[in-house]
């Protein structure tokens, strides 16, 4: 089991300091929530973990492997999967295809010229994909085209695409945005269930119901800096957090 440790990560866009000396320690197996007002730098921080952005300074270690500087596919192959704030799925493929593709990445690695075997004979991958679609509650529309799904369903599909890979670290950027209350609760249950498998998770959420039902630890980010960190109870009672976030925009 590997910890994620983030040290002194800073990132500026032009004059804007999006991340300012961020430090974060995520224990293996834990659910770590990151909360904070809009524009606080939460998504930017995740972008630094998966290779979408390169921070100006700092280090990100996953276990004893440095993640900074690796291309995105190497980071994923190291066991890091991400659900994006705006769903990144294969819009014009079917749901099963969407989930089979990441399953192939896990099975075959970053590149394999698998050009002559028939897709219809890859039953192990297909069964696995359909099983995970069932877990997220999308089995009924497995042959629909992903682009036709609602925003909430796209998010569940993207979650399935991550889960099928059995990641060691799962990054979730607002996993329940756009979902109904019922679907949100289902997703919470699902995330709790996979928590038992010991996947480390980082969850960014605005929905405090989700945060407080899942998180073991919470970091509060505001204007690019971590202004508080602690257990859910500590965060609830922290006056600085009340001021910057809970009392502010919400």
């Amino acid at each position: 089991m590997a910890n994620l440790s983030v040290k002194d990560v800073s990132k500026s866009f032009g004059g804007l300091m999006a991340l300012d000396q961020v430090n974060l320690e995520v224990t293996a197996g834990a659910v770590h929530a990151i909360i904070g007002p809009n524009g606080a730098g939460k998504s930017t921080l995740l972008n630094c973990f998966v290779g979408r952005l390169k921070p100006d300074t700092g280090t990100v270690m996953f276990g004893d492997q440095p993640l900074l500087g690796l291309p995105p596919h190497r980071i994923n192959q190291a066991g890091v999967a991400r659900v994006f704030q705006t769903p990144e799925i294969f819009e014009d493929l079917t749901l099963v295809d969407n989930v089979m593709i990441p399953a192939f990445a896990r099975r075959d690695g970053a590149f394999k010229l698998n050009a002559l075997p028939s897709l219809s004979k890859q039953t192990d991958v297909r069964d696995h994909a359909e099983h995970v679609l069932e877990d997220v509650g999308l089995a009924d529309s497995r042959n629909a085209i992903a682009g036709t799904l609602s925003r909430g369903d796209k998010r569940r599909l993207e979650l399935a695409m991550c889960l099928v890979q059995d990641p060691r670290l799962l990054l979730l950027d607002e996993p329940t945005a756009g979902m109904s209350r019922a679907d949100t609760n289902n997703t919470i249950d699902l995330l709790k269930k996979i928590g038992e498998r010991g996947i480390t998770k980082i969850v960014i959420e605005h929905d405090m119901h989700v945060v407080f039902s899942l998180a073991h630890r919470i970091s509060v980010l505001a204007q690019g800096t971590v202004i508080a960190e602690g257990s859910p109870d500590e965060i609830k009672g922290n006056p600085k957090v009340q001021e910057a976030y809970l009392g502010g925009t919400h």
Partner: protein
Amino acid sequence: MAKFLRNDLVVLAIFAVVVLAMPIWLQPLGAGYPDLLQRFAIYGIFAIGFNILFGLTGYLSFGHAAFLGVGSYAAVWSFKLLSLNVIPAVMLSIVVAGLFAAVIGFICLRRSGIYFSILTLAFAQMSYNLAYSVLTPITNGETGLRVLRADPRVIDGMLGVDAKGVLVTDLFGISMSGYSGFYFCAAMLIIGFFFAMRIMRSPFGMMLKAIKSNQNRMSYTGFNTRPYALAAFVISGMYAGLAGALLAATDPLAGAERMQWTASGEVVLMTILGGAGTLVGPFLGAGIIKYFENIFSAFNQQALNQAFSFLPEWLQDIVVGVISPFVGEGWHLTLGVVFMLIVIFLPGGLMEGFRRLGRLFTSGGNGPDRRKAASPAAQPQAAE
């Protein structure tokens, strides 16, 4: 019906019968003669290969004629140095075009979208100009490379096969002109079609479609997308090389004009007209363009006047005046207009048109739940 078409061998058998019977069923359309049939098969191969790159990955190359030209030169060199037998020529062309594609693809795939297209175009134009200038010793410049009686042909020499009379390419003694030439091209087309079908229905084909759909997601999913795109580029270059070899086999002469950007553009049109990303669309597009090219470019002012001689003279003049820019040399104008109409009204190409027609006839009973799975660009390859 759709399920039955999932079986590769069934599809292959139907395709083979249709292709091999072309001399029969194209007869009433006035296209049942070997010269034109050979072109259908050869450009069909070119388009089927191009589709593996463009149709699956979405990378639009504007330089594939370069590989066609390289294939032709390699084949003629094989006829000169090795043997007039087409088998070594075909193999050499595929290998040389593949290597050439690996180098060009490696460089061009550093960029995507329009920049990729421009890079491929630039490389093809460079090849075209080099063939006319510094590479004249290899390409014989403007005259074109042809087979000569004095050529060494070492394999033929060793086997004691001596070309008598006219120099024609052969397949173990069967001359590659006329119908036997067509059947050889048709056999290559069927083999090429089979491999393309296997690729499209393999995990590799699925990855290529995923690259077209969302390349970002592919990276965050753990795939190194560049070797996938490069593999598709090289495979399509090899198909182009094969097509070039067959052009040389049926007419042992290679010239640089085969590498012109218009030839690269033509294969793009063929693929889009038939339906990019579909199995038979590119072949269909190639056939239709070559067929109408043949008809339209044969017309001239005189033929037009004759065709409309039943009209009163003043009307005849107007009609002929309006039509004549679109025929003969002006055939490309017609092609341009047709292409615009297709892109605007039927962006999925003719295969999309057939699918819409099919849906019109079958949608009576099971409309709504069908529609869910059948968004236009994405219907999994069942309907072909």
